[in-house]
């Protein structure tokens, strides 16, 4: 019996830490293979089959599989062109240009553009809630947060999903250097941390928006992505790294059809494109207007472009290494140095152990993980293996001791009920109300995952309100919501409205738990099944309160129980 109870504890522990909590049937599945085997399976996601229905629905999210350049051409260029036309109609008379008219002219296109964000959110949520490769989903969220970008900033509105899909997701278990390189080359990162403007002063390409050094990315690359804030670098290293990364940016002209084919830059290309998403700044491809017969270089569909004309080719000293002026190779060399640093090994190990083991992770464990990192030249899977095999990870005192973040709470609730979800808005709105909207963390350090950042009285009231609404079957989750202003002539086409990505506190929140407004309600979760899904692990106070309540109150109470606030 004692053994059984301990095995039950271990099953729940792996489901809480390597997954976003149990789905119906998970407890039995892990029990059959044993928690240790489950860990091994999860470390090798390619061995776990994805249900056909889920991969079909992910495949239907077509913007998820588009390159950054294709996304730009499809969803941003039409807005830029409509803007240009509206301006041209004003006859070049600057005073006659009415910004309201321009706004009106681009309104439908901007609404159309929002599908990109909606699909990114849906892809993330449906995989996290239904996907069997749970550790892959946990690690995708972890690394996205580590390399956080903010979808509310300009072009990142269309590039955030692509960033996660190509720069993060494929590299979750591999070499950290590969992951680091993928993020460093991605236009979403180069845009978010301003490196696309980082220019050697006095270089041939230095003009207009590209006037000088922008050290934003260089600083965060060391402070957040690799070495850590006390990682032993100086301001001189920040400046040296910024110089090394001059010219790492976005295509400066011309167009492509997404497969790298050359096209004439004027007219059909991306000439004169302006940044979208709120008019925050100047042109993305600023030289095209002036250079009529300019034949652009082939555009890399990834959206990365190294502009030699803005690069500083002088020799640099970076973290004690001499780096010869050699163009783009200097940046690759610098990334090698950063990825191999013991400070990076320690910083990443600390963050992983804090996420998977405890808010204040055991130092000895962090050290062993860092050593494994250095011994394997930064293999994430190896570092995870060391952690999952450790006595610290399996210490019962760490079980159920992590307070769930709003994302983890919402996803684990959705998983536990097993509701087939087709409308993600209520879930997104709840995360937003709880202060953790997906893809909308403004600061580059991402969201914290410790209890002291998330536990507060108001948040508890909101969590319990969400638990009450979900547990009573009062969230419209099962059907895609009607677009409220949908054209009735289209036969009531079901078009899910995208969740809003907005400034924290700067706009209206789309959730009000009001079932009448957003279509039919869902089937209420069955409390007995819910309790079984969660392994019937409840404290006496919770068990008594649940047992003393009428049936239709039980699911809300289980989802709102103190035990379920933790993982």
């Amino acid at each position, binding site marked *: 019996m004692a053994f059984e109870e301990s095995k*039950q*504890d271990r099953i729940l522990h792996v489901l809480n830490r390597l997954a976003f909590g149990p789905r119906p049937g998970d407890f039995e599945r892990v029990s059959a293979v044993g928690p240790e085997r489950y860990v091994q399976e999860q470390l090798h996601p390619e061995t776990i089959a994805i249900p056909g229905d889920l991969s079909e629905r992910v495949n239907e999210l077509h913007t998820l599989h588009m390159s950054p350049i294709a996304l730009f051409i499809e969803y941003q260029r039409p807005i830029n062109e409509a803007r240009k036309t509206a301006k041209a109609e004003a006859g070049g008379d600057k005073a006659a*240009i009415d*910004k*309201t008219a321009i706004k009106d002219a681009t309104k439908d296109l901007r609404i159309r553009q929002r599908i990109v964000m909606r699909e990114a959110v849906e892809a993330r949520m449906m995989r996290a809630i239904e996907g069997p490769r749970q550790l892959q989903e946990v690690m995708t969220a972890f690394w996205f947060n580590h390399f956080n970008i903010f979808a509310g900033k300009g072009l990142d509105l269309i590039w955030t999903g692509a960033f996660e899909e190509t720069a993060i997701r494929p590299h979750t278990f591999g070499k950290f250097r590969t992951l680091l390189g993928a993020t460093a080359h991605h236009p979403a990162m180069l845009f978010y941390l301003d490196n696309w403007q980082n220019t050697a002063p006095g270089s041939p390409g230095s003009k207009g928006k590209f006037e000088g050094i922008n050290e934003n990315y260089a600083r*965060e690359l060391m402070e*957040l992505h690799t070495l850590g804030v006390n990682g032993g670098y100086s301001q001189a290293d920040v400046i040296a790294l910024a110089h090394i990364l001059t010219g790492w940016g976005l295509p400066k002209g011309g167009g492509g059809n997404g497969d790298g084919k050359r096209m004439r830059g004027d007219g059909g290309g991306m000439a004169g494109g302006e940044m979208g998403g*709120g008019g*925050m700044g100047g042109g993305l491809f600023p030289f095209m207007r002036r250079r009529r017969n300019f034949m652009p270089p082939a555009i890399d569909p990834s959206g990365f472009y190294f502009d030699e004309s803005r690069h500083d080719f002088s020799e640099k000293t970076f973290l004690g290494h001499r780096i010869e002026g050699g163009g783009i190779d200097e940046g690759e060399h610098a990334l090698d140095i950063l990825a191999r640093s013991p400070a990076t090994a320690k910083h990443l190990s600390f963050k992983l152990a804090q996420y998977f083991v405890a808010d204040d992770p055991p130092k000895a464990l962090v050290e062993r993980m860092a050593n494994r990192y250095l011994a394997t030249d930064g293999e994430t899977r190896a570092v995870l293996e060391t952690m999952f095999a450790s006595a610290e990870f399996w210490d*019962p*005192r*760490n*079980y*159920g*001791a992590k307070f769930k973040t709003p994302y983890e709470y919402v996803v684990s609730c959705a998983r536990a009920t097993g509701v087939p979800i087709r409308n993600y808005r209520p879930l997104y709105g709840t995360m937003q109300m709880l*202060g953790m909207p997906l893809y909308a963390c403004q*600061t*580059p*350090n991402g969201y914290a995952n410790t*209890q*002291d*950042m998330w536990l*507060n*009285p*108001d948040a*508890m*009231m909101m969590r*319990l*309100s*969400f638990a*009450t*609404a979900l547990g009573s079957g*009062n969230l419209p989750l099962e059907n895609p919501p009607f677009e409220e202003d949908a054209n009735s002539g289209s036969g009531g086409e079901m078009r899910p409205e995208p969740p809003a990505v907005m*400034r*924290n506190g*700067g706009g*209206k*929140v789309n959730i009000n*738990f*009001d*079932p*009448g407004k957003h279509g039919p309600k869902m089937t209420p979760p069955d409390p*007995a099944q819910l*309790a079984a899904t969660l392994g*019937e*692990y*409840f404290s*006496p106070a919770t068990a008594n*309160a649940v*047992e003393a*309540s*009428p*049936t*239709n*109150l*039980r699911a*809300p109470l289980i989802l709102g*129980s*103190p035990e379920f*606030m933790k993982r």
Partner: protein
Amino acid sequence: MSKNLQDPAACIACNPGAATPLSRRAFLRRAAVLSASGIVLLSPHAWAARSLDSSSKRRLIVVFLRGAVDGLNVVVPHGESAYYDARPTIAIGRMGAGDGVIDLDGYFGLHPALAPMDAQWRDGTLAFVHACGSPDPTRSHFDAQDFMESGTPGVRTTQDGWLNRTLAAIPGTHGPTEALSLGPTVPRILSGRVPVANIALGRAAERPMPMDRPVIEAAFDKMYVGNDSISRAYRDGRQARMRLVSELTQDMTEANAGAPSPQGFSDDTDRLARLIGRDPTIRVAFMALGGWDTHVSEGAATGQLAGHLKPLAEGLSSLAKSLGPNYQDTVILVISEFGRTMHENGNGGTDHGHGNVMWVMGGPVKGGKVYGRWPGLSTASLYQERDLAVTTDFREPIAAVLRSHMQFSDAQIDRVFPGRPRMSSNAAGLIKV
């Protein structure tokens, strides 16, 4: 309004259902796990570790005008002809002209839509700090609001807001309604370790939450009985919610019994004033108003900006009145992320600029004065030859309020604004001592 407020929990209350056993299997006790988490949960950062300093009722209200209000048309330098040259269609008329400025000191004048606040100016409880703003050069709303709320211009990694750190710097326990945010979510400026009570703006404030049902509350009450921090957070949240709900319910009754209440902002400021009147533990409050990004058709004495300023002035003036005696212990700051271009653009509006004006109101304010160092509007004195320069860092007047009104030490102020500039402007004397 209740008919479209279908509370999801209502159906449960109406239809309690037949009790059936939850499960055939017994609930297992996870004694080891629970006792272990008890240790982890006693975090030194938990709010309940402090004890309330109830001797002080001094409080601070911050109103954020999101979108960058045109400060040159709020407190108008009507003594400068350059102002009139730069704004042929949107300048506010000189003193004495119909719809002209309300003169303040012979050099500056108030936008005529701010007439309701003239009373506070004359009774010496309203001051302004002109050419005030952030040292960071950004003209992005996103970055500038972020910096003004984090209180650390140029530093992007600060996660909490300066208003939350203000509370954190006050020794003692922080009760559940000590910080009040009016809006859809807790904003950046109030995010952080100290708990924040949040109520929605407008009529949404009166909307019940799904768990505001006695039967549900009673059941949750039985679960959250422990001495762990999650249970304590729950009980604090319940207390705050009960207090706010009862106060808001009372509000509704009063509003329905009397004349129709004014719409919009003054509704919210009146509600805030009543909450403060009933709940002396409220120490800081925050609300944000949008619609100031006047790139097009800004208008002058009338028009878009005037249409936004008027309800703001009515709301602030009404707040001053409805605070009653509490006005003597309250300072209200009105801030905005940056100012707007000095020159009017081709669309009868103004674009993103730099320096702005900060409003400071309340009993403790040494008002009737425009503080700051006026840089002038000649092309040479403009920032980048286009915007009003910033001669007073926005943290300086706030630091003065913290020092003289909230009675903070330098060390406490440094915790609110790490790395703040040393005081160099006359804004140090903003508060009566």
